[in-house]
């Protein structure tokens, strides 16, 4: 009897363990597939000029050099537009070469700068609001109000990002009659605030109550113990939340279509349309040129690397700053 039970329990344990491992595998398959696919195809678009250059229209013409400058524009020549005309190395129109097959040219520097700017300004909007709201929820407990705020945060973080885009489109873009980077930042801030708020709250709650009491027992007002004792102790966790918010914002496409519109050149005027990596990915994916389709994967790859790099940099920085904490 005893042996039977033991074997059965052991079998159940092994089956459950196997099922858990299987489920974990299933859960990470999409992740690995996406990263692998982006890496393989996106790597085809990688070159130095992909990071240092902006948009270049597809063309089969060779890159102009000092001894072979681009041919002068002739308005009477129907093929004179070098961006579409198949022109061979000698400068003659070559009908066997199609622009359709042209190798991708140009890069996504404008998208990199645009994404950093738009998501960065979005974070500037979201950080103070999110962190102070998180502090309020965790440290100044007014339960009824806190429950409402918490509920709204959860609804907001679960709502589709296009809703944030439409809201800013109506409230800002239509009013100003101008697509702009800063409008995009506002839309992203709406998506970032609930993430920053909730992680700040959760991380502050993890700080032991004894630390608060120790500070309060010295006559410290709540704001003082929060700023000098509780917040520093929770900082590494809060930074993680902020990075999550940045990654979420940097990867959003839908709200940007309705707010920043996109651009083909480097524009640092935040009150004008701007390029962004997700927008380039979206645009290039729809492009009829295979070269640009490849660049879409490249842009996605750069976006992933950008978020990863930011993550690593900020983690190294906070580990140094809070270095004596462990």
């Amino acid at each position: 009897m005893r042996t039977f039970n033991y074997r059965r329990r052991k079998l159940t344990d092994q089956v459950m363990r196997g099922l858990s491992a299987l489920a974990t595998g299933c859960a990470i398959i999409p992740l690995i597939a996406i990263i692998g696919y982006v890496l393989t195809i996106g790597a085809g678009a990688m070159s130095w000029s992909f990071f240092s250059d902006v948009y270049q229209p597809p063309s089969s013409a060779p890159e102009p050099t000092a001894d072979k400058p681009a041919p002068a524009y002739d308005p009477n020549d129907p093929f004179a537009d070098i961006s579409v005309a198949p022109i061979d190395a000698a400068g003659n129109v070559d009908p066997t070469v199609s622009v359709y097959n042209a190798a991708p040219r140009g890069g996504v520097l404008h998208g990199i700068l645009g994404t950093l700017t738009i998501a960065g300004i979005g974070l500037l909007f979201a950080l103070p609001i999110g962190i102070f709201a998180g502090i309020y929820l965790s440290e100044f407990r007014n339960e009824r109000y806190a429950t409402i705020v918490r509920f709204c945060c959860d609804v907001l973080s679960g709502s589709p990002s296009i809703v944030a885009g439409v809201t800013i489109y109506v409230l800002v873009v239509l009013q100003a009659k101008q697509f702009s980077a800063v409008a995009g930042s506002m839309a992203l801030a709406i998506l970032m605030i609930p993430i920053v708020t909730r992680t700040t709250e959760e991380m502050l709650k993890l700080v032991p109550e004894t630390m608060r009491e120790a500070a309060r027992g010295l006559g410290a007002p709540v704001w003082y113990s929060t700023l000098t004792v509780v917040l520093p102790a929770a900082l590494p966790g809060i930074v993680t939340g902020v990075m999550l918010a940045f990654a979420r914002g940097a990867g959003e496409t839908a709200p940007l279509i309705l707010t920043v519109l996109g651009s083909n050149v480097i524009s640092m005027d935040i009150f004008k349309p701007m390029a962004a990596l997700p927008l380039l990915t979206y645009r290039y994916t729809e492009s009829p040129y295979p070269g640009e389709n490849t660049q879409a994967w490249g842009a996605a790859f750069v976006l992933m690397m950008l978020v990863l790099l930011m993550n690593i940099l900020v983690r190294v920085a906070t580990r140094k700053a809070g270095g004596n904490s462990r």
Partner: protein
Amino acid sequence: MSAMILQELKPFYGKRQAVKAVNMELASNQITAIIGPSGCGKSTVLRCLNRMHETIPGATATGTVLLGGQDIYAADVDPTMIRIKVGMVFQQPVALRTRNVYENVAIGLRLQGISQRAELDAAVERALRSAVLWDEVKDVLSKPGTALSGGQQQRLAIARALAIQPDVLLLDEPASALDPIATASIEELLVTLKQRLTIVIVTHSMQQAARISDETAVFMVDVGQNQTIGELVEKGQTTQVFTQPSDPRTESYISGRVG
């Protein structure tokens, strides 16, 4: 002379009264021990003495607690000012994370606006010496406070409380998380400290109360039909309380029959 006088002090958690009205006097420059079984409200009463009780959501207290003739529960009193005069040390040794040993002690001084390096240095050293910790940590002042041992962290907490020179020091089971050697060093420290200030210590250990305290207050739990409520049953000279208790409940508690 009494450092603090409690008159009709009634602590509440929400609507529930935790302890029956407390009336007692805490003698200056003496160690008063508060003993009693779990749930009798001894920590609650202690926390009322520097208005830390009300930092728990829903907790309130009524009555009068006189500190140097001033009622700390008067309407115009800022609780943070009371906590500067009445310091507190908690059960769990607390070293503030992200702060080194020096800053762990200096925080209370900085809070009061002292930022002159020389003044801070002197006050930190004085506090660490008073807590008999200076010789052990003088070379590791810039190390994290959490790197110290449990006993050292508790003396660090005492140094932090002493740095702002309070009139009264409240200790809530300060040695219950420590080993016997660390406990002995804390007890020794408290006995030397009573020359300078008034000490109130909540303890589970009757031996500890007997060893170090001058006066002892005994709290008991009164289990009623609807609610349990704490109650001060006896207060007097420690030798008196332990040898000739006036209340039969005290006698059964200290002889180990209850609690």
